[in-house]
């Protein structure tokens, strides 16, 4: 069978003009995803109303809302006696609410009793600065209308055609690889498996009425390039890489499930903290050194990098809810945790990963504290530590020796980077063709130099599109942040996407000699099982911040509301419905601005 396939395909030559079709297809896929992810209107969901003495209904649009007079508050109360930041309103998974005092001057009273933290029932009288407010729920009708009027994910750009485009892209990639001399049986298995996997995931999510598939499509696109790279560099690892993608999708679904429920996510956090440290400690004790870093574990014939999995744990630990943040619970514990992790990585000589954790730490610390001084202090301290490391550890210094002038060290420490640039130039914008590259003969080129690898065989244009995928994901997370339900998700998504961006920066800039080469993987593309599985786990955090209607399996549709049927007539809002009890004006302003003048 295999021989027959090989004989069949050996009659044909690679199709030269196809190299111009790939970028067009890829660009089409990316544009469709980008339009869908970046042009939607962030529409916060209304979870309850806060009524004021003058009868206005202020929407509460997050699970954690800062209440006060200041402009930075989510629920802004224009009463001079109310403190700038007065209280935090928190909603729980089961629909219950609490209110806590955020160091206000006049305190928070519930039904006349002053409290620091108190459960809140609908109808309870909340007194702040001498003014009485009441929290009232949405009616079933309002919930239904809200679900109907919010723009459904994938409404403007349908997902199935994008996925069809990707499938076509993948089929052509497989054909081109086979015509370029790669084994047909292997290629068909790998790409067939990938296509089956993405459609299975898509249909499964559809079955759950989830219609947002853009982030997953981008990830699968990058995985396609990853498989193309592996086909050329190490065809024997193709099946392993496909299995890693399958495992990654499983991890993705598990993390999505764990994030669906905020209480569950918060519980998982403690487990993650212990697991993170445990994995690294285990690694330090039993680790194996590969490529100069002692960051590998060998378990029953399978080798993996625990530090990759710690990334997912780290984000669980770092993300936090607003109520905790406003309680001024300082972040010392988190800083200590981060320091321990970075120290473990330094001991493992895994500086690239240490940098990733450090940047993720910075982002989380900043999101939690908003304090530039803390960040500056952390950077200064780390810079100082970095100088010490460079001063005393010669192997670390060697890595920096050629930095910035690799062409002067073209045959020694700058070998990888100069070969990369030579090969990028050789490929031009459209590449030399699959399997025709030379870079595969350079050590670790299918991970550390994968940008150049894709450039050489598929063209610089395609490599730039890979970077664009990551940038699109980052922009999406930031864009959807204002509509986030809980800080936990926003911080988690920002941290996850920061890890991806940082990895891409270190990978691409290291190759391009803008930064020292640190041997960090390109998300979804680089050859390597652990990093593939981990990055799918990170993608789950991105999905958990995707609050577009019915977008994400990591988001539970509000309590008591069934997901909408396939094609809602969203264009017709509540025209025929009985008039809601609350002012219509609120619905006209879905961005959650208070209705009161």
């Amino acid at each position, binding site marked *: 069978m295999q021989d027959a396939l090989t004989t069949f395909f050996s009659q044909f030559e690679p199709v030269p003009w196809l190299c111009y079709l790939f970028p067009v297809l890829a660009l089409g896929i990316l544009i469709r995803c980008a339009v869908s992810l970046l042009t939607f209107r962030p529409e916060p969901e209304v979870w309850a109303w806060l009524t004021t003495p003058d009868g206005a209904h202020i929407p509460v649009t997050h699970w954690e809302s800062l209440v006060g007079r200041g402009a930075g508050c989510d629920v802004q109360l224009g009463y001079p006696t109310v403190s700038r930041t007065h209280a935090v309103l928190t909603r729980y998974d089961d629909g219950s609410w609490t209110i806590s005092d955020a160091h206000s001057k006049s305190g928070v009273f519930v039904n006349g009793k002053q409290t620091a933290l108190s459960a809140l029932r609908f109808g309870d009288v909340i007194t702040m600065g001498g003014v009485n407010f009441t929290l009232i729920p949405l009616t079933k009708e309002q919930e239904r209308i809200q679900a109907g009027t919010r723009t459904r994910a994938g409404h403007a750009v349908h997902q199935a055609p994008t996925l069809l485009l990707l499938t076509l892209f993948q089929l052509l990639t497989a054909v081109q690889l086979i015509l370029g001399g790669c084994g047909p049986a292997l290629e068909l298995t790998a790409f067939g498996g990938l296509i089956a996997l993405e459609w299975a995931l898509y249909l499964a999510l559809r079955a759950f009425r989830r219609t947002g598939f853009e982030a997953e499509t981008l990830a699968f696109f990058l995985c396609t390039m990853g498989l193309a790279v592996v086909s050329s560099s190490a065809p024997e690892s193709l099946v392993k890489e496909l299995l890693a993608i399958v495992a990654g999708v499983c991890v993705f679904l598990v993390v999505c499930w764990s994030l669906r429920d905020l209480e569950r996510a918060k519980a998982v956090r403690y487990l993650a903290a212990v697991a993170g440290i445990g994995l690294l400690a285990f690694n330090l004790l039993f680790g194996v050194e590969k490529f100069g870093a002692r960051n590998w574990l060998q378990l029953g014939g399978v080798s993996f990098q625990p530090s990759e999995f710690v990334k997912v744990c780290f984000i669980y630990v770092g993300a936090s809810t607003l109520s905790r943040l406003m309680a001024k619970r300082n972040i010392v514990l988190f800083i200590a945790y981060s320091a321990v992790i970075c120290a473990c990585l330094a001991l493992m000589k895994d500086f690239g990963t240490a940098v990733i954790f450090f940047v993720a730490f910075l982002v989380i610390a900043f999101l939690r504290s908003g304090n530039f001084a803390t960040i500056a202090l952390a950077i200064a301290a780390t810079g100082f530590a970095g100088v010490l490391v460079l001063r005393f550890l010669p192997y670390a210094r060697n890595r920096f020796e050629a930095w910035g002038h690799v062409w002067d060290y073209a*045959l020694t420490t700058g070998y990888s980077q*100069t070969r990369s640039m*030579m090969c990028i130039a050789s490929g*031009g914008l459209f590449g030399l063709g699959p399997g025709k590259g030379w870079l595969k003969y350079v050590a670790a080129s299918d991970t550390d130099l994968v940008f150049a690898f894709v450039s050489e065989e598929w063209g610089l244009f395609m490599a730039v599109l890979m970077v664009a995928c*990551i940038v699109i994901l980052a922009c999406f997370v930031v864009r959807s942040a204002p509509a986030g339900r809980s800080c936990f998700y*926003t911080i988690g998504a920002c941290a996850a996407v920061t890890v991806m961006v940082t990895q891409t920066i270190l990978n691409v800039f290291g190759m391009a000699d803008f930064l020292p080469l640190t041997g960090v993987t390109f998300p979804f593309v680089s050859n390597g099982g652990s990093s593939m599985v981990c990055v799918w786990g990170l993608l789950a955090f991105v999905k958990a911040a995707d609050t577009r209607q019915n977008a994400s399996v990591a988001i539970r549709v509000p309590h008591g509301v069934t997901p909408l049927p396939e094609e809602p007539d969203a264009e017709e809002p509540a025209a025929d419905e009985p008039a809601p009890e609350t002012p219509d004006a609120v619905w006209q302003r879905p961005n959650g601005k208070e209705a009161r003048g």
Partner: protein
Amino acid sequence: MKKVSRRALFALALAAVLAVGTLAFCVKYAANAEKWVTFSGSPHVYTGTNLTGGRIYDRSGVRILNTTDGRVYSDDEAVREATVHLLGDRYGYISAPLLGNFAEQMIGYDKITGLNEASKGTASARLTISAEVQKAALQALGSYHGAVGVYNYKTGEILCAVTSPSYDPDNIPDIAGDETGAYDGVYLNRFFDAAYTPGSIFKLVTSAAALEKSASAQTGTHTCTGKTIIGGQEIICMSSHGTLAMPEALAHSCNVYYGELAASLGKDALQAACDKLGFNGTLACDGYTARSTVDLSDADDGSVAWAGIGQYTDQITAVQFLRFMGVIANGGEAAEPYLMQKISRAGQTVYEAETKTTGRLLSEETAKALGDMMRGAVVNQYGAWQFGNLTVCAKSGTAERENGPADAMFAGFVQDEAYPLAFVVFAERGGSGSQTAAPIAAKVLAACKTMLDTPNPNG
């Protein structure tokens, strides 16, 4: 929540860094892609360190290399041996920067299509060397290691740039297993890359320095009693030359005279002359970088005297000395030597050499005086008969080396409008310059004359 979502812009800033950096890389690509792809060792363009692409011809249109499909050298074994150092071998042992230097023109690279549309193999390059002269020069050197160079001091064309030992790239000898020393430094191009202790030929430099300082230096005399002590260091001559002026001192190569001349000049004047003539620096020649050093900064009087007779720490490459010969021959200013004449691709000329001048390095009077003295040395000492009807002006050198025979040197030029050729011959362990190196020069010049006299069918 609002605060946190506003802080999320931090992540956006990071994404912006990624986007801007990637863009910056694309700009870098647009600006430098040609340099990257043609950089020495670029995998799709080079085999080892040697460019693969195009056909290479000598000045008469004889094909000496075809890299369209592998590396096919000349059919003539002797030509292969005499040119392999300029063309590079198949395995990258002999690095030949000449072709790499013109990689951009040879490859025809395009930033959009990369190497896909590159006209691999269709470029043809014409060198200034003559395969026949190369062959004659390598044969004339015989078993001596060393270098022979000839160039046209009016146009700059290098007719001959030979290094020995060499080998046939189509029939590689057992170099690693050789114990006779016949292949010592066989991968080195001694014409460009080997710096020699020049010995007596360096007296021309000392003479030039003295004449530039004062034209009357030619008539000033020193008395040689066979030896002298300068700055505590003893300098000896083969015989006691008596009282002599510069022309006789040059012809007899009197060490005492030149030691004392150098000492009286002083180290600053000698150093300045060496710097100006390029003997303390590099000469770039179509991808090769030759480096000579004459560094007198730590020299006392005795050392300056030794430096003046081409010893001390003086290290001179053949090509740089050849250029100096051209400068004397052409009245103090000559053409810079070059190897690549012309490259054409797809019927179009993409590169054509232009004659570049060295600029005025010596006054006309100095150049003429040196030329006359060199002519005198040939007539009175070496034997003008050796060179047939070519008016050769030259200086021999016998650079003493520890353990064994000295290096034989012979450098000069032809004083003839029809044959404006400067030449150098360095024969390691050749013994006497005038007895070993001069006959080699004579043979090479004869071959040059024959070649120049033969009408070139290929234009």
